């Protein structure tokens, strides 16, 4: 599963970032390193870009980029201690047009 396929409000964990060179590095430098929990908090009305919550910071990236980020369903492991993931699951659910959040190619 990749980040573009997740539902709005779903919390997932990054497992792998694909892509080449500087492009991939830039995604990771924004906080999308393996092990990070991410939530898609919104989708632009035209279906792209996506708005993410990563390490307590909001960030928008395009669907094409999100497809390079493989994710797994995020169980809250005991090792997770960063504070950013609490109390944010309620955000943004109404932003997406129906069907867009799950209709990644």
């Amino acid at each position: 599963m990749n980040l573009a396929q997740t539902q709005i409000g779903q919390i997932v964990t990054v497992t792998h970032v694909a892509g080449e060179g500087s492009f991939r590095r830039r995604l990771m430098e924004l906080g999308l390193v393996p092990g990070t929990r991410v939530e898609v908090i919104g989708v632009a009305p035209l279906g792209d870009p996506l708005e993410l919550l990563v390490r307590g910071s909001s960030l928008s990236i395009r669907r094409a980029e999100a497809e390079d980020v493989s994710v797994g369903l995020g169980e809250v492991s005991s090792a997770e201690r960063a504070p950013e993931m609490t109390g944010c699951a309620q955000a943004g659910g109404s932003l997406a047009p129906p069907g867009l959040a799950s209709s990644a190619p």
Partner: protein
Amino acid sequence: MTQHELSSVSRGEPDAAHHPAHTPLLLLIGNPNTGKTTLFNRLTGQNARMGNYPGITVERRSGDLTLRAAGAERVVEVVDVPGAYSLSARSAEEQIALSAVLGWAENPRPDLCVLVVDAGQLARNLYLVTQLLELDVQVVVVLNMIDEVRENPPNAAELSRFLGVPCIATDARHGKGLLELERAISAALELPARRALRINYPPALERDLERVSAALPSEWRGSAARARALALWALTSVEEDDELQGVDPALRTRCLEVRAQAGARDIDQEVIATRYALIDAELPKLYPRLESHPKKRKTSERVDRVLLHPVFGFAIFIGLMLLMFQSLFSWSDPAIRLIEACTSMSADFVEAHVPESIVRDLVTRGVIGGVGNVVVFLPQILLLFFCIGILEDSGYMARVAFLMDRIMKALGLHGRAFVPMLSGFACAVPAILATRTMERQRDRLLTMLVVPLMTCSARLPVYTLIIGALFPPSHLFGWLPVQGLLMIAMYLFSTFITLISAGVLGRTAVKGRRIPLILELPPYRLPSFTGTLSMMWRRAAMFLREAGSGILLFTILLWALLSFPRPAHVDQPPPPAAAIHQQGRSVPNPQLASSPAPVQGPSAIEQSYGGRLGKALEPVLRPLGFDWKIGVGLIGAFAAREVFVSTLGLVYGIGDADENTTPLRDKIRHERSADGSAAYSPLMGLSLMVFFALSCQCMSTLMVVYRETRTLRWPLFMFGYMTTLAYVASFIVYQGGRLLGF
């Protein structure tokens, strides 16, 4: 668990020159959207000097900060470095931050780096902090926008302990915490002390770093910590095909070698994940409570549910954009009229008091006209930057990019290109200036190159004249007015061509590497009017200073082209005052306009160099259906497109013609070619409108592109591709139309 160490404090470093006459240099660095520029304005009192970074067309803003500590005053130069998420780079543009910090590539070496951090986005911002601290430079950290995390603010003292450098909490928008910051800056300058952060990377990576360090050129080894940090930087920046500047070939080879030998290991991930692990481990200790979804952000998200809604969001967006466009298009009108009236009054005044001579003509037509040609852009520039200031400041500009990115992406453009493109419908000059709101050079360039294809307001008088003269007011299907339809068709045509051109140019001439779009949706804030006003003023002053002289010079040149050689006796109206920018509204002379002088023999303009050039061009223009008279009009139109109308008037011996002048329309309608047939057909009219839609008949646009790119290459390229496009399209319209029997 990752460890980090703070190396011992090093004092009296050899690289900071501390003689008394030296004005200390302070860099403001940070991620985009951290309020860096607001802080810069607060510190320097908005007396910014604009320049460029050496060797690259990226704006370098600097200003003076006066520190008052212990009764003594000390002036410090502050430079606002472009926002960056990381110091690692693959292009010269991304390299700016590092070059500025280390004083590379002709940049002056800074004495202190003030790192601005958004208190509400701490984790991501701390990434840059770790990079900078590894570099072993002197740093003061500013925890800005602290007011937005009031309920759960990160602890500045705790952060200072973790990083080993002073951390000051500020709220730059409201001017809070600035005194403490100035005190910290004074103290840091007084007692230079660097603390290098040492992060322990996985053992394999440490071995790689040693190998890369060994290949560093001697001028890159300041201290052991600096050498290590630069080895890290090179290892995560150098690629086979990067566009970095000043990287030693031996170092480059070594980096590529080490990366190739890494095998299954992932060097980038090792570096980045280690830094983030360090940040993640520290973060909980910085907050009073384990909750970091600030209230301000929640409020913003609620507002976004409406403003980014598929229906209401777009409705509000279209409304706001229409309002902005309306203000550019119509509200600037009274100011433009006033400027035009002033220009023609000054010219009339000179004409009334100075006897007829070539010098008088130079002053009235060239100089006064030229100054008018420059000043006439100001109303639209000021209005556009007012709108942009409010949009940026309130946080809505990021939403515009968010909403429109899907569409702009298809054209190879950034979502932020939307506002400049839209302003292109009013005038290309302010629109090109507005491309500075985009971060990436390639995005700015591509937007700049296609914006002049949009139907600007200066094309309207030309279309009005042609449609009025050559297309009789008839109705399609008995109710659709043909004239109005044609006007709409011209708008649709130009928009369509603009979009196609952006797509094509973005894949050819300004091909950029694919980089991720990074967009932040900042919380909504109340816009600052003083900040916006000062930005409007700066942009306008810059336009006057940089593009003004060029436009003035070209106006005089065009005047000379259409005035020399002088006819033996002047009984024809003089060449056009090129100052008639918008709508060709020079103050009309009713006598001349209502009673056309009978044309006997060639007009003055026909004998001028411009007239001769028009005649020389006729064979080239023939296939498009144009004769030499149109050719002269096209030359005159370089001053500004609508000057075509008054130039054509002069060719026909009609002074002060505008697009609604009946005699000029009649002349065009009844013009006969040698065989007695009508010289100008509706088909030729269509061909001429297509030519105007696509060609770059505007020296001001070319001048502004030259000033923005600082090279002749792009204005020449723009002129070349637009003229070719216009010629080919007109050719197809005219010859195709004739084949079809029109």
